[in-house]
């Protein structure tokens, strides 16, 4: 094959994509446009902006120059057509669902989901007439069997929660596309550095940018990215995108913009009406994180591997759930889809149940005990004594969590210090 022109590499895009040096003042860093609104040149210009005849910003709930840099950068890193940054990862999931569905629609979702996503799909959206069937993701046929005539979306996480089940993208995407449906994935745990879901057949993805994208734990945000590859018109299931919409001057979003139809409606309706936009300062914070994503993720993974190796050989540990371990059910799939690593969030089961878990957590000095993941600092939580403390052991087991299950998010500290910290905790757990 002849050598063609070359695209910039991931590392270059992580630092530059979406931004041109500031034309007015020459600022190299992304300027923070802390403004709600933008002065029109004249009435004609204003009318053209509102009617989408000219590109530009009108009001920062819809778009903002700082936020737009983050959106474009994430689209570039994921290989999408564009993105919309949102107030949180949950807002990104809601925006995707609300753009594609009406009351009466149905979702088929993996049952290995972040608890917040499970709540939204299993309880909250049900109140608005959107039903979800949860299926075990390890068997792609489970998705097919759950599809109904009113199904509009298949949904899973790149790495499931809490067992780090690896979603078989090629197989689940095939099921989705054969049914004329898009596949949405939560790619938070993998980031575009470890895996680009669009290359494996996903159509839409989102991140909780709060986690590894930011990496610093200072800002809550989300990003919804569209591959632009799903053919809404041929699917015939999405009049939201392929029929005139009275809520936006009878616009047929697909006819108007082709590959941009989903994002166009999500921005022009979803951000306009639900309003879960990202603040420019937040976008700036997340961008600072993304600029070093390609340096941080290999370190996160390398330290995680060291810690996993330490834990599997410790007698206080009953089981470690990490897909790089041969005993993990998705080990072979992980080798195929995640050759750069399976991330830095994983769970292990302590012997000794809830009390052992409490003693372990309370003995740690470097790991921070809190409810978050994906920080530069190492984090830990023991669900049975914190987030899930009301549940019986039997109910915990049903949720895939043992009384001694501990979740770690491995940060960027010296790995030997982290292992020493964990060893202290394990000694306490044994007492």
């Amino acid at each position, binding site marked *: 094959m002849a050598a063609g022109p070359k*695209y*910039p590499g991931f590392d270059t895009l992580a630092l530059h994509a979406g931004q041109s040096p500031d034309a007015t003042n020459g600022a190299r860093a992304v300027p923070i446009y802390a403004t709600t609104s933008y002065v029109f040149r004249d009435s004609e210009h204003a009318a053209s902006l509102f009617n989408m*005849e000219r*590109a530009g910003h009108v009001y920062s709930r819809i778009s903002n120059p700082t936020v*737009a840099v983050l959106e*474009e950068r994430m689209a570039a890193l994921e290989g999408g057509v564009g993105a919309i940054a949102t107030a949180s990862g949950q807002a990104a999931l809601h925006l995707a669902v609300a753009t594609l569905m009406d009351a009466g629609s149905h979702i088929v979702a993996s049952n290995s989901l972040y608890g917040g996503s499970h709540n939204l799909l299993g309880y909250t959206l049900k109140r608005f007439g959107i039903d979800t069937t949860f299926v075990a993701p390890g068997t792609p046929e489970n998705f097919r069997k759950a599809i109904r005539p009113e199904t509009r979306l298949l949904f899973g996480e790149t790495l499931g929660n809490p067992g780090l089940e690896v979603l078989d993208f090629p197989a689940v995407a095939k099921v989705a596309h054969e049914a004329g449906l898009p596949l949405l994935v939560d790619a938070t745990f993998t980031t575009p550095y470890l895996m680009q879901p669009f290359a494996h057949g996903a159509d839409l993805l989102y991140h909780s940018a709060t986690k590894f994208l930011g990496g610093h734990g200072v800002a809550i945000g989300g990003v919804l990215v569209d591959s632009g590859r799903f053919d809404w018109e041929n699917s015939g299931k999405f009049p939201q995108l392929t029929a005139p919409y009275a809520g936006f*001057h009878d616009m047929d979003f697909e006819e108007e913009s082709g*590959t941009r139809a989903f994002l166009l409606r999500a921005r022009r309706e979803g951000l306009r009406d639900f309003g879960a936009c990202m603040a420019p300062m937040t976008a700036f914070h997340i961008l600072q994180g993304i600029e070093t994503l390609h340096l941080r993720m290999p370190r996160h993974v390398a330290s995680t591997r060291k810690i996993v190796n330490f834990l599997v050989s410790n007698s206080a540990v009953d089981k470690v759930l990490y897909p790089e371990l041969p005993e993990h059910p998705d080990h072979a799939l992980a080798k195929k889809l995640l050759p750069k690593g399976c991330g830095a969030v994983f769970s292990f089961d302590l012997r000794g149940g809830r009390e052992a878990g409490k003693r372990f957590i309370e003995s740690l000095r470097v790991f921070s005990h809190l409810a978050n993941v994906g920080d530069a600092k190492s984090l830990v939580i023991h669900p049975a004594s914190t987030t899930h403390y009301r549940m019986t052991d039997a109910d915990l087991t049903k949720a895939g969590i043992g009384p001694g299950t501990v979740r770690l998010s491995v940060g960027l500290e010296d790995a030997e210090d982290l292992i020493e910290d964990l060893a202290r905790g394990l000694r306490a757990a044994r007492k």
Partner: protein
Amino acid sequence: MNFTVDGRQAFAYTAAHALDAAKPTVVFAHGAGLEHSWFGLQSRYFGYHGRNVLALDFPAHGRSEGPPLGSVTEMADWVLRLLDAAQVRKASMVGHSLGSLVALECAARHPERIEKIALLGTAYPMTVTAVFLNAAQENRQDAYDMLNIWGHAQQVALGGNPNPGMWMHGDTLARLARLAPGVLYNDLKACHEYAGGEAAAAKVKCPVLFVLGRRDQMTPAKAGLAFAETVAGAQVVQLAASGHSLMAESPDAVLDALIDFLRG
């Protein structure tokens, strides 16, 4: 809006307006491998400002049925048949790249039907390298990458899309992914083999505007300027920051140039 041309469905975007015989008409003709929405902002503007708009999908592109038309002259004749189907007697044309050659040929062959032509990202001859043509003929991904990378100014690779939140390289690749095999090759070959530019340029009597990107890697501004010199009375607008995809890279500047040119 769907029309029937040569017994097949032919689509033209009309900015959600019915055609009005009392209004002047602007036809937008896209470049190789693309479709009507490449002119999204500009065509929408004219549709909401007193014009009929027909933003075309050439056969086998966008929503128009195939097979593709094999030459610029066939495409020009097809445009006239579509105008007949739409019952539009006269129109101005805005053409980009391959579409600019079609617009030129329409104006030369049918001066009674074409009032003005605006040629965006154009040059003559519009040669295509053998490496590019071969890759397209074999439907290889690197053909789409060449069109994508050379089809934008170099700085586009690092972003700064005027359309907030959109990634131009990703958008173009997604559009090209929808093409049937062989269509890009067909279009590039039509550009490469078109030999009627000098004759057409000499015949054209209507007002002509050239809009050229100073950072165009596909049809360099220098080549576009040389072409413009062969067209009597041609106006030229050069956009300093734009590459070949002028409508996406500099949408407002393109629109302003078209508003000025099509006025009156």
